[in-house]
């Protein structure tokens, strides 16, 4: 009981100190000739913030954050602050929320020096002063504080009551607004917890904050930092530890009561997790010896586990295994562990494409229905990322026509759908991704087939307007155009090789240059393109004539012909793996197109078959008629 009172007192002290600073700033506007004290107070405010941050860092490195511990640290922090602020003479502050009487009752020691307070003034006059102070223009810090106070309170309530529509609004609208506030004005976790403490204390409601709330707030905070600044090693460490704790607690909730989070938020957590992992690997690549000696030392000793690929990969796999997908059918039951697990399966696809394991990524992708509405289509960014990565995997495994199919479907979906609920940097990211997909589509288009019938016209038009010059250059055999398209659109690779951390003097990692590999891989296909164009012109042609047309000797022609045919064997390899019993027309068409030009060599001539696409006009009409009549019926 005593401790509780003490807590309350000290909470109030901190509140009062904050309000003190606010009052002082307001007093500045009243032309108080107290310059020295004001600047001292500003310095105090800065020191206060710094101290809070330092202490926050220390606290974050402790992995047990029970609420009791929080409060204990609270007390320590308050005591430190009180010691630091012995220069502050304003210990009695007008807290507009508490009445004067109750304040006096709780803090008997308070009636010391308060030059602001003249004992001869009547309460009414004092209240008038208060009102005057309140009507003065508020500082940015105050506005930020107020916004965050509201935000945390609503979040706290939303989590407690599992109020999904409210959480949706909160995340889609409020967070967007909050992200416009400068990062230095964002309160730290202690202040957030304290906000809830105060508000719920005033309303005399139970104060139990959900254990995930501070972690979720920190996740937002670090996400914001990563988007706006170039983070230092410290931030990487803190953010990683935060994620570890968050996922650990999701896995084993202490209260055995799970919360519901909006779907967007869950996807963003996973997306950001992967993004920070990628950015960390780029960061470590750029460390140079001996310039960044300290950081390298820390990485090899203290921070060995931070963003360790093994842990990251394991973590994603764990998450995907704890979730129960069946429960996702029922919207009431969108618990956080199920959502995170579902999205972490998609996350595994993303991460495996970035590592280079395309086979595995495609295997995971089979769990999702990629061309119809599925659960993930509720989040646009998720669909975009998923299709981009799956299409890229198809490109790298030489299944070009499948790649065309994926890119075309997601690009047409994107052109139809509007997105409003995106933060600024996310909108830019999506537009960039769309451009990247067009480039990859161009590559698939050249090497696969330009006869694929399911591409909507608008996509074709966009493709032509953006990349027609490069496509013609590639068809002529120019390698640079291919590299241009590829290097812009490839996802950033993550090198998970751990070897460099075991060597003492940090030799710069030899990055396997993905572009080089791609070049070597595509070179034979590129050279065979010219031959392909020649073949398309004939039905029967002598090998000698082909040799003349392409300025190569006959032996080379035969080799290239064999190369074109070798694709069929490759495709059969993948076909056997798919094991789909239903042979729908689309698959057959894709297989045929993938096999390329059908030809046979007989003695010295090449006999070529044509692939004719029969336009199914009848079926098209029937489909449209039934759609129209459905529309009519629905209107009536």
């Amino acid at each position: 009981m005593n401790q509780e009172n003490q807590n309350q007192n000290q909470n109030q002290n901190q509140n009062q100190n904050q309000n003190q600073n606010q009052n002082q700033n307001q007093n500045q506007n009243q032309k108080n000739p107290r310059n020295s004290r004001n600047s001292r107070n500003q310095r105090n405010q800065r020191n206060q913030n710094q101290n809070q941050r330092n202490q926050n860092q220390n606290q974050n490195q402790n992995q047990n954050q029970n609420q009791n511990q929080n409060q204990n640290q609270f007390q320590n922090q308050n005591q430190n602050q009180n010691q630091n602020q012995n220069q502050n003479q304003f210990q009695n502050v007008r807290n507009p929320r508490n009445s004067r009487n109750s304040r006096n009752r709780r803090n008997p020691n308070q009636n010391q020096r308060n030059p602001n307070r003249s004992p001869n003034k009547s309460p009414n006059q004092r209240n008038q002063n208060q009102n005057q102070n309140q009507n003065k223009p508020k500082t940015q810090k105050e506005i930020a504080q107020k916004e965050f106070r509201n935000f945390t309170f609503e979040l706290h309530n939303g989590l407690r009551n599992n109020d999904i529509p409210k959480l949706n609004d909160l995340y889609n609208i409020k967070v967007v607004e909050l992200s416009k506030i400068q990062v230095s004005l964002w309160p730290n976790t202690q202040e957030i917890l304290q906000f809830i403490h105060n508000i719920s204390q005033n309303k005399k409601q139970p104060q139990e904050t959900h254990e995930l709330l501070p972690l979720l707030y920190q996740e937002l905070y670090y996400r914001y930092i990563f988007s706006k600044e170039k983070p230092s090693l410290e931030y990487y460490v803190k953010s990683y530890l935060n994620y570890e704790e968050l996922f650990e607690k999701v896995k084993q909730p202490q209260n055995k009561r799970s919360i519901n989070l909006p779907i967007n938020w869950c996807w963003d957590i996973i997306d950001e997790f992967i993004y920070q992992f990628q950015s960390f690997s780029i960061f470590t690549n750029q460390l140079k010896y001996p310039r960044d000696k300290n950081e390298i030392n820390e990485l090899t000793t203290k921070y060995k586990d931070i963003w360790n690929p093994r842990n990251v990969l394991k973590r994603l796999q764990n998450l995907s295994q704890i979730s129960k997908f069946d429960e996702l059918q029922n919207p009431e039951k969108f618990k956080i562990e199920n959502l995170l697990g579902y999205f972490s399966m998609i996350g595994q696809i993303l991460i495996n494409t970035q590592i280079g394991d395309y086979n595995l990524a495609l295997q995971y992708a089979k769990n999702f229905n990629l061309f119809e509405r599925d659960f993930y289509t509720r989040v646009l960014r998720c669909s975009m990322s998923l299709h981009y990565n799956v299409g890229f995997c198809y490109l790298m495994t030489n299944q070009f026509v499948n790649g065309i199919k994926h890119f075309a479907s997601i690009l047409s979906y994107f052109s139809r759908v509007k997105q409003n609920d995106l933060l600024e940097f996310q909108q830019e990211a999506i537009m960039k991704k769309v451009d990247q997909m067009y480039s990859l589509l161009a590559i698939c288009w050249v090497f696969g087939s330009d006869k694929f019938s399911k591409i909507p016209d608008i996509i074709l038009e966009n493709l032509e307007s953006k990349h027609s010059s490069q496509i013609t250059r590639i068809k002529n055999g120019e390698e640079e155009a291919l590299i241009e398209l590829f290097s812009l659109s490839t996802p950033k690779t993550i090198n998970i090789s751990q070897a460099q951390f075991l060597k003492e003097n940090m030799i710069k990692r030899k990055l396997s240059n993905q572009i080089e590999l791609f070049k070597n891989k595509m070179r034979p296909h590129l050279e065979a393109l010219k031959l392909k164009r020649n073949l398309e012109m004939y039905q029967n042609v002598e090998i000698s004539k082909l040799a003349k047309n392409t300025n190569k000797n006959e032996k080379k022609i035969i080799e290239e012909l064999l190369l074109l045919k070798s694709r069929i064997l490759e495709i059969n390899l993948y076909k056997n793996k798919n094991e789909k019993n239903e042979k729908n027309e689309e698959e057959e068409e894709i297989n045929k197109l993938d096999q390329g030009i059908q030809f046979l060599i007989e003695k010295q001539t090449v006999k070529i078959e044509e692939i004719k696409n029969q336009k199914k006009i009848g079926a098209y009409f029937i489909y449209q008629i039934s759609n129209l009549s459905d529309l009519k019926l629905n209107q009536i």
Partner: protein
Amino acid sequence: MQEILEKLEISRYEPEFIPELEKVFMDNLYNIDAATCLLKLYQLNPEKENIEIVHKILSLALPNTAEFWLCFMLVSAEIKTHQSLQVLIQINRLLEHCQFTDLWELMNNLPDTKISPEILNPKIRDYIKSLLLITYQSINKSDIKQFLSINDDELNKLIEENNWGSDQETIIFPKPTTKPQVKIDIGIDISRISTVFSKMD
């Protein structure tokens, strides 16, 4: 093999699986999933990296040019430039480019004794044979001998086994069965027609 694959589905990144996976490849069995998984584990645990096994994996993957490339992507950067792997890369390149005569020249004079030609040559021959089957309708005997690097006796054996027609100079392969039949398909479902007519008033 199945057991290890099932275990991998549960948790792929345990370093304890490395010995089991290595054993699979020492027995000359090959599976693309196991191969990619082992190579990733090697990247994550470089102290356990065994270049011989990597060599083995890549040599077993050679007949499938697509899978060779997939495995090669996952080999860690330090080993990629290792000398013993260079021969394999060269073999793969020749296979990809279909330069079969050069390929057999290399295979018959292998500088590297780690690659066992007894295991590899038949697989490569199978691959080339299937490729020739889908490319040619009739091929000169001299050509096929060059491509497969076989002598007359072996060629005659092949002809007998597969029932190919043969002339003095040429072999005639059977016509491919996958020739697409001309289907007159206007693509109209009967059920659809009925719905359309029922909706018309």
